[in-house]
């Protein structure tokens, strides 16, 4: 067991966990932040995407100890109170989710895309979502939501 210090959604937290504990399990099991989901065991589906020091990573492919001292942002940290992050709102407006299981990872990835590309075109969004699987939407409305979310984030910046 080791004691791991993390900063999650702006709060300093400590997790007491096995060395093998993945960041995703630390978030879900130890911190009860269950919005970060696990959809595969081969680092392919992207449901577990969170930001570590401002960059989207798959939280199933990094040990919690590797993230010690890092600033971690999860889906739970996006909205302020009842006010949604513009990307969250865009997913609602454009019906960018159906079952909602891949959605937290999609939204975290979408924000990362905007952080790096500003206002990406459709082709860029499609290419950048290569690491996120959705089985419900055919991606069609996710693409629309990300483009619209990017516009809104740009307007707010």
């Amino acid at each position, binding site marked *: 067991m080791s004691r791991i210090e993390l900063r999650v959604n702006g709060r300093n937290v400590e997790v007491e966990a*096995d060395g*093998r504990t993945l960041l995703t399990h630390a978030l*879900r*099991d130890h911190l009860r*932040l*269950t*919005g*970060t*989901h*696990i*959809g*595969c*065991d*081969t680092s*392919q*589906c992207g*449901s577990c995407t969170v930001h570590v020091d401002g960059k989207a990573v798959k939280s199933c492919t990094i040990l919690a100890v590797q993230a010690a001292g890092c600033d971690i942002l*999860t*889906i*739970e940290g*996006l*909205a302020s109170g009842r006010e*949604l992050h513009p990307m*969250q709102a865009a*997913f*609602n*407006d*454009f*019906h960018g*989710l*159906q*079952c*909602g*299981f*891949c*959605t*937290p990872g999609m*939204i975290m990835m979408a924000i990362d895309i905007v952080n790096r590309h500003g206002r990406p075109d*459709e082709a860029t*969004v*499609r*290419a950048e*979502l*290569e690491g*996120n*699987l*959705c*089985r*419900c*939407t*055919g*991606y*069609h*409305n*996710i*693409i629309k939501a990300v483009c619209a979310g990017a516009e809104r984030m740009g307007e707010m910046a």
Partner: protein
Amino acid sequence: MNETVANGKFGQSVKRVEDARLITGRGRFVDDLVFPGQTYAAFVRSPYAHATIAGIDLASAQDMPGVIRILTGRELADAGLPPLPSGWNLSSIDGTPARVGLHHALAVDAIRFVGEPVALVIAETRDQARDAADTVLVEYQELPTVVDLAAAIADDAPQLHDGIAQNRAFEWEIGSSAAVEAAFAGATRRVTLSLRNNRLIPNAIEPRAINVQWSAFDEAMTIYLTHQNPIGMRGFFAIMLGLPSENNLRVVSPDVGGGFGSKAPAYAEEFAVAFAAKMLDRPVKWTAERSESFLTDAHGRDHLTTAELAMDDNGRFLGLRVHTLANLGAYISTSNALVVSYMYATMLSGQYAIPAIHARVEGVYTNTCPVDAYRGAGRPEAAYLIERLANLAAREIGVDQAEIRRRNFIREFPYQTPLIYCYDSGDYEGCLDAALGLADYAGFEARKAESQARGKLRGIGLSAYVEACGIGPSKLLASLGGGGAMWESCEIRVQPGGSIEVLTGAHNHGQGHQTVYAQIVSERFGVPMDSINVVQGDTDRIQAGTGTYGSRASVGLSAAVHSCDKIVAKGRAIVAHMLEVNLADVVFADGIYSSAASNRTVAFVEMAQAAHGAASFPTDQIEPGLVATSFFDPPNFTYPAGVHVCEVEIDPETGVVEVVAFNAADDFGNVANPLIVEGQVHGGVTQGIAQALWENAIYDPDNAQLMTASYMDYGMPRADSLPEFGLCFWPSPTPVNPLGMKGCGEAGAIGAPPAVINAVCDALGVDHVDMPASPEKIWQLCRAREVS
């Protein structure tokens, strides 16, 4: 984009109300739940596809840290867990019942597919359970395996189940073989086709999960289960677990992360976990890892079919003869006997007036994961076959693929096919024209020339599908071998303050039920959407239900309409007393009761208050309170139909097929929420394109190992592999239910595969390509084309 409206309205693109929790990470899925005293389960799974179990050594595993109990199949059977139940009784042509191979929750003596669970480890943590499962020593005696359908029915094939020769579970037929013989005798032209409908792995992104609490004192169990039919599962579990009655069991499905059919069966692992919780008297949780999902979630499709279509010289279809070998996998999964028979072969008439049809289906066991319903469930297999045949017919007659369809379309409704179904309504040619317009069919040759100039081959493919949804008339289904009970219920409770609860036994796993039910009730009562709470997936709250599958939302929504009608009618009676007018003079519109005989009006909420107050009407004539329950059993199926048009571009040097355009005109009858329905089509079309181009479950023919057991080897559709879709609706409302809705969830997965393959064949100028049209396969065809 429509803004959320305070009052819902049927037919509007209302934004989904369930999104708020899901986009903020506050959804609640089964794996999110942890109970006091929680334990965790892990399965020991067979690395072999066919073997006998010679021994299981638990000694070292039992001493591992955190291990509470390890259970074997023998122990569970001895403790009283029976083999898995069958959901459908199918009879063979000779009248004998299907030969069912017993399926134990944990293998007792023999293994019949790779990944089959052999033992169950319960430990204090997930990792401890996994660690211990890895150290359980099982001694297997390997047996020869069989994967291939044709090989499985050979005399010398390895036999999976005692007493089931040649692995044949049943031989079933539908239609008249005599009529078909006569049709072929009178036909001048015919086309024949042999094809494989590739095996698919459903891949809902949320893996299967269960968390079971047991209270020994009052023999009460609560099962949290990610499932499409939690209410229906209560009966299965109560029987399997030997509980005194269904009242001893509560099943809850919270948010469900996709299903596509794969969360409808009753699974071995879930029964084992529930039984273990009862033995241990502690909560037990199991969440599948994706690798386990690949190996054990019921797979889809996997047909080997030969078919012949007889025509006259003008290409009019006269007769259709079909023979299908259906791969059942190692056992018959819950609904699969239905899926491969009545869900499949009844659809072989397609959109066409074919006077004589006969189909024979043989269900065959192989050393593979059991197969069951997967998005479309039998109907995609039928549509793929008939739509491929239609294009072969067009080639044979020398007419355009649209023209061959026009010549054969059913034009008058209702239309009784030779295969049970009576199509209720439709406008197939109107739909075709709409789709061709959307796809700019007329401009295809110019686009093809442009592609050619860039060294690419371009093809266009049509498919005109019809399916049977809104399952279904209970009596009819019972007569075909089911247990009936294909209605859906809806209870509406109006509280004194005017807030409304809508309880339904349908269960959302992405379809947006919370929104659509609220839309309909909001419109009918003239009250705001946010005063309505839709409750699903908890047997303690919902009295009865049959779940969500087979595009049957219309059944539950019809029950909601009937409950709304009952409430509104009761309100009229109450208001007649409040206004002191005749009942016949009370009208209700836009949330207001009024009467020409009075100046006063009563809002719906006031009426609700009065209903509970019970002071303004005689309670010996009108009962207080405001609750209505309805069960809707549809008089017929609904028959959604549509035309999908796919355009592909092929790189002849590499064989890569790119879908460059996909357009669809669909008849879903009336559409409750276009935003949601379009989303359903996007998802379905994507799964259909993926079946045609990438997805393929491959078992090693030598040892029946699953070679596509992860996302590294199973080709999932991704955002960058698809074009933007063009959709339109071409509704012919159905008379079968009060909303005129037909269903939309599976349409894309049914219409897309033949459209894609027809486009690929068009581009290459070949008769047929089996799915998936993988790069190497297409490259070989391009090479052959160059040579010729």
